[in-house]
C-alpha cells in the first residue's frame, strides 16, 4: 500500500462536486415555480407524441398549476411495462389493440381517440428532383432514402405503403440510402444526399428539420393500415381520478388538440379525425 497523501481540499472538492452533479442532473426536472394546486399527474405516451405533449403539458401546467410528470418513449415498450406491473395515471399509446388490451386486463379505465398519423413525401427544400407524386419515386435517377429496418411506423409501414401502391420493387431499386433510423434518414434529405423519402408527417415538423424540407401529400388510398391511431386513456392506477379525467378532457379538447395539429398529426377532433375514428373503429370496448 502506498503512503496516503494529505489533501486538504479533498473534502471541499467532493462536497462541491456532489452539489454540482446534483444541480446538473436534477435542475431540469425541477417543478415549475407556481403550483397553485400542488398536484401531480403521471403521463406516459408514445415517444412520437412527445413534440405535441411537451408544449401541451406546459400549457396545462400554466393553466391549472398541476405538475405533469411526463415520459415519452416507444409505446410497445411502455405498454409491455404497464402490462407487466408498472404504473402510470394517463397513457397515450400508438396501436389501438394495445389500448384495448390494457382495458381487457383491467389496467386502463377507458380511452378516447387522440389523433392519427399520416405519411407524406419529403424532399430537400426546393424539391430539386421535381417530385410531384408517389410514382415519381420509380423514375430513373431519383435517389430515394428509406429506413426499412426502423421500428414499425418508420420501416414496415412505409414498405406496406409501397406494396399497396404496387411500386415497391421499382422504388427499392432507386433506394440509395437504406437506414435503420428515421431521424438519420431525414438528415440525409436535409443534406441533399437523396431526393425524396416517405415519412410520417410529424417527422417533417421536428425542430431539427423545420424549414428544410418540402412536403407533398400521399393519397389516402395508399396510406398503410394501422398503426395510424393514437389513443389516450385514464389508467386504474390514477391516484386522483377527477384530475386524470380533467387532464384527458383538456388534451382531447380543441385547446389541447391544436398542439397535435401543430406537431403534424390529424387531431381526432377534426373532421378528418372523426372520419378516421369511424373508419378505423377507434372505440372503447
Amino acid at each position: 500500500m502506498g503512503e496516503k497523501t494529505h489533501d486538504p481540499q479533498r473534502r471541499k472538492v467532493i462536497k462541491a462536486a456532489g452539489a454540482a452533479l446534483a444541480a446538473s442532473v436534477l435542475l431540469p426536472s425541477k417543478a415549475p415555480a407556481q403550483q397553485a394546486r400542488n398536484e401531480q399527474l403521471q403521463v406516459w405516451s408514445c415517444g412520437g407524441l412527445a413534440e405535441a405533449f411537451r408544449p401541451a403539458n406546459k400549457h396545462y401546467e400554466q393553466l391549472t398549476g398541476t405538475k405533469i410528470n411526463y415520459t415519452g418513449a416507444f409505446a410497445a415498450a411502455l405498454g409491455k411495462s404497464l402490462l407487466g406491473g408498472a404504473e402510470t395515471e394517463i397513457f397515450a399509446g400508438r396501436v389501438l389493440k394495445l389500448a384495448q388490451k390494457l382495458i381487457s386486463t383491467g389496467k386502463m379505465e377507458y380511452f378516447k381517440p387522440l389523433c392519427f398519423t399520416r405519411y407524406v413525401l419529403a424532399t430537400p427544400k426546393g424539391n430539386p428532383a421535381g417530385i410531384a407524386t408517389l410514382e415519381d419515386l420509380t423514375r430513373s435517377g431519383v435517389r430515394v432514402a428509406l429506413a426499412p429496418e426502423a421500428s414499425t411506423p418508420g420501416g414496415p409501414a412505409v414498405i406496406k405503403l409501397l406494396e399497396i401502391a404496387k411500386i415497391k420493387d421499382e422504388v427499392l431499386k432507386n433506394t440509395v440510402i437504406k437506414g435503420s433510423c428515421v431521424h438519420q434518414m431525414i438528415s440525409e434529405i436535409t443534406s441533399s444526399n437523396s431526393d425524396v423519402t416517405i415519412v410520417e408527417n410529424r417527422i417533417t415538423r421536428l425542430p431539427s428539420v423545420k424549414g428544410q424540407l418540402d412536403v407533398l401529400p400521399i393519397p389516402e388510398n395508399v396510406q398503410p393500415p394501422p398503426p395510424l391511431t393514437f389513443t389516450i386513456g385514464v389508467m386504474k392506477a390514477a391516484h386522483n381520478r377527477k384530475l386524470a379525467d380533467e387532464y384527458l378532457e383538456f388534451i382531447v379538447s380543441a385547446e389541447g388538440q391544436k398542439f397535435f395539429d401543430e406537431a403534424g398529426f390529424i387531431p381526432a377532433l377534426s373532421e378528418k379525425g372523426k372520419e378516421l375514428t369511424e373508419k378505423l373503429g377507434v372505440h372503447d370496448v
Partner: protein
Amino acid sequence: MSENKGATILINKLKWLNNTSKLIFLTIIGQWSFYGIFRCPFPVPFVGCSNCPVITCWGRISSLFWGFWLVLPLSVILFGRAFCGWACPGGFINQMFGKISPFKTGPKSRLNKFAPLGFIVGISITLYLWLGWNNPRLAIPIRVGEFWQSIALTFEHADSYWLARTAIVLSLTLASFLVVNVWCRMFCPTGGVLEGLSRFAVFRVYKNDICNDCDNCRQLCAMKTRPAETNCTNCGDCVSQCPQHAVKIGRKGK
C-alpha cells in the same frame, strides 16, 4: 522579478484552478455524460447526438455536441490530454472514487506500462461499434422522462449488448475504488486517442534535467504518472510540489 512572482502565484493556484475548472465542466457537461452512460440508446455515446431521439439530452438540445467536437481537437493540439485533467466529468468522478477509495496502489504503479495496450483495446472496440457496426440503437430511447424512471425504463427494455456495454463501463468506473483511475488510465477510448495525440501538444507540463527521480510527483498524481509520461493530463497538480523545482509548465525547451 514581478513576472516571476506572478508565475509563482499562478502555479500555487493551479490546483485550485484545476478543481474549479472540473466543477464548472461537471455542471456544464455532467448531464450530457450522464445521458451518455445511462440513457443513450447507442453503444458509442456522444457521436450521434444530432440524430438521437432522446430530445431532453443536453447534447441534443444545445450546441454542446458540435462545440465539444470542435474544441476537443483544438485542446489536444494546444494542451495534450488537458481535457481529461481539466474538464472530463467522467474523469472527475473516477478521481473522486480514487480519492475516497480505502485501497491505494503503490506510488510506482506499473499499470501505466500496460496503458497503451488497454487503450488499443478500448479504441478498437469503440471503432468497431461505431464505424464497423454503424452504432446501432440497442436500447429503447426514453425521449422525455422523469429522472429515475427513465433510467429504470432504459435498463428494462435495453438489448443485452447495451446492458453489457453499460455494465463494463460502470464496473471499470467503480473499479477506481480498487485501482485508482483504472478507466481513465487504461480503457477510456477518448483518453486513449488524446494520449496518442498528446505528443504533438504545443504546451505541456514537463520535468527538466534537475529531476532526481524522487517520484513525489507520481505519488501526488491522480493518474499515478509523472510529467510528460504516459497518462499525464497536464493537470499541473505536481508543478508546485516538486522538491527540486524540476517540474515546469509551458513549451519544453523554450
